[in-house]
């Protein structure tokens, strides 16, 4: 899909710090990416890469977690969310920006029925009557393909399977027709066949409503399946940004290429190509390129000294690697 929608979300230089035993630790540094109307942007990275912190930063939820944002702007529909107070943010969260998280059962209140919780969200944001909110709730549950929606709306979260819960969460996230949906590992806790159904549903709803999605996942397969453009994160930074096709055909950052080689693929044979070493912890990032001590292409004095900016690596393609133009990296071979 080509993206021609208007700029919806512009994250620019987002930096988030948390207070640890040894002072402030920078969990996310200088993260920039854009989401256009109707676009699905994938944020991919391993655990500790900063993808969830980034999404919390976008939502203004880092303060509640004891974090601070020394730099960065998060411009959503023309307003810088960083400058807003909680009251103003609450009018945007849930209404203009919907959220879906990994563990639907933890985001739902066990003491209320599914329908009550969705209707409550609608009433909170739009102040419409109980009966109107309930009618819309049933329509929404039907839209996410929950069978017998009027009956299921009266059931409690524990009566829903994991996949059904996630559908209900998607219905709730969409209840006020947001322009942006943030989905943080929405299918990670689900079985693979259920995951496929939920991903299909999200795609269908995206096409129908035109909602933009910031899709966060550690799974390259899911990202390839869903995203139009992708930002790859490593050790708190975006290390590569490109369209999904560009990224998977010709990755320009050694970490991205390494991740692709490390994913088991059908018909690949017995030996996987591993990336040596471990993901560094926040606060212990190596100087220079944060990937250099695991990178087979690293060169002393060039990769391990200065902070490396995102460099242009093609049309609408950036890579945080000083050797980008010299390296020939292999992507996913397309049959």
């Amino acid at each position, binding site marked *: 899909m080509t993206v021609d929608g208007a700029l919806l979300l512009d994250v620019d230089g987002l930096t988030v710090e948390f207070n640890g035993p040894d002072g402030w630790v920078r969990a996310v540094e200088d993260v920039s990416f854009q989401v256009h109307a109707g676009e699905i942007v994938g944020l991919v990275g391993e655990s500790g890469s900063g993808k969830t912190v980034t999404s919390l930063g976008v939502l203004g939820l880092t303060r509640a977690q004891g974090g601070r944002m020394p730099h960065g702007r998060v411009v959503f529909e023309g307003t810088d969310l960083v400058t807003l107070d909680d009251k103003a943010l609450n009018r945007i969260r849930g209404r203009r920006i919907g959220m879906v998280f990994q563990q639907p059962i933890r985001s739902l209140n066990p003491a209320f029925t599914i329908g009550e919780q969705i209707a409550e969200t609608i009433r909170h944001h739009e102040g419409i009557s109980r009966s109107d909110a309930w009618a819309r709730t049933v329509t929404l549950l039907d839209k996410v393909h929950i069978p017998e929606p009027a009956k299921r709306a009266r059931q409690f979260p524990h009566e829903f399977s994991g996949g059904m819960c996630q559908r209900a969460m998607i219905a709730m996230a969409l209840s006020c027709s947001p322009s942006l949906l943030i989905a943080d590992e929405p299918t990670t806790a689900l079985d693979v066949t259920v*995951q496929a159904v939920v991903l299909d549903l999200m795609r269908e709803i995206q096409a129908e409503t035109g909602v933009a999605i910031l899709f966060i996942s550690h799974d390259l397969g899911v990202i390839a399946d869903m995203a139009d453009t992708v930002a790859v994160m490593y050790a708190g930074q975006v290390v590569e940004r490109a369209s999904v096709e560009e990224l998977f055909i010709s990755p320009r950052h050694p970490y991205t290429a390494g*991740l692709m080689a490390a*994913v088991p*693929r059908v018909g690949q044979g*017995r030996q*996987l190509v*591993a990336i040596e070493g*471990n993901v560094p912890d926040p606060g212990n990032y190596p100087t220079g390129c944060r990937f250099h001590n695991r990178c087979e292409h690293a060169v002393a004095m060039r990769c391990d000294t200065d902070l490396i900016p995102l460099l242009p690596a093609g049309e609408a393609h950036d890579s945080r690697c000083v050797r980008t133009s010299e390296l020939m990296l292999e992507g*996913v071979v*397309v049959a």
Partner: protein
Amino acid sequence: MSLLEAKHLTKRFAVKRNLFGRVTEWFTAVDDVSFTVEQGETLALVGESGAGKSTTGRMALRLIEPDMGEVRFEGEDLLALDGPAMRKRRQDMQMIFQDPFSSLAPHRTIGEAVAEPLLVHFGMGSKERLAIAAGLLDRVGLSAAVRERYPSELSGGQLQRVAIARALTLEPKLIVCDEPVAALDVSVRAQVLNLMHDLQAERKLAYLFVSHDLALVEVIADRVAVMSHGRIVEEGPSAELFRSPKTEYTAELLSAVPRPVPRSLRAPATTLG
């Protein structure tokens, strides 16, 4: 003679009991499951959550007693063994779990943890034990400094290497691996799988590999048994099963695996063979 032979394994768990403690409702977790594992090969048990694969894996080691069926290890009927005889047999069969942290004692150093089975089984002296542990930790790619550390100081990938080293101390013939890399990051996962593969070739180890991840199973397994609702619905050599699945269920599972190829660049999906 197969290394491990499981016949008609069945396990049911009580769901409901009446006032007098009599069971009124059963859940059959594993239903008449049979398979073999040969020396030096990997059999993968795959399926979705609740399919009964973990219960089957544990029954193979008699960590869960089957209600019905038979488990033979090198021809010997495991279920007929008494406590001491079974304990002796366990030297040949080890297990690795998904979460290595919870399977290691937090107050014991890594070196001690890896050496412990040698004390339990052979009453071996401390020096000798630790020397063997050091060799194994080295083999799984951990530096000497790791020996003095505690589990909380290591990363997930390092801990899984420790779990592998510990499983190897008694030189087993079979290791049951229950989702051994499911909790690891992609880049680290490949390291651990490659290590397991090398160790298998080097020691003629057999793996019974329990996993929900089909893409992974194709890489690691010689043969695959697909489980659903407590039964094996399809079994065959890995390459064959992935090329032309014979049951609808396997085909569906395969098609549900997200492939790391963008949607717009995909070849049309392969059909049921």
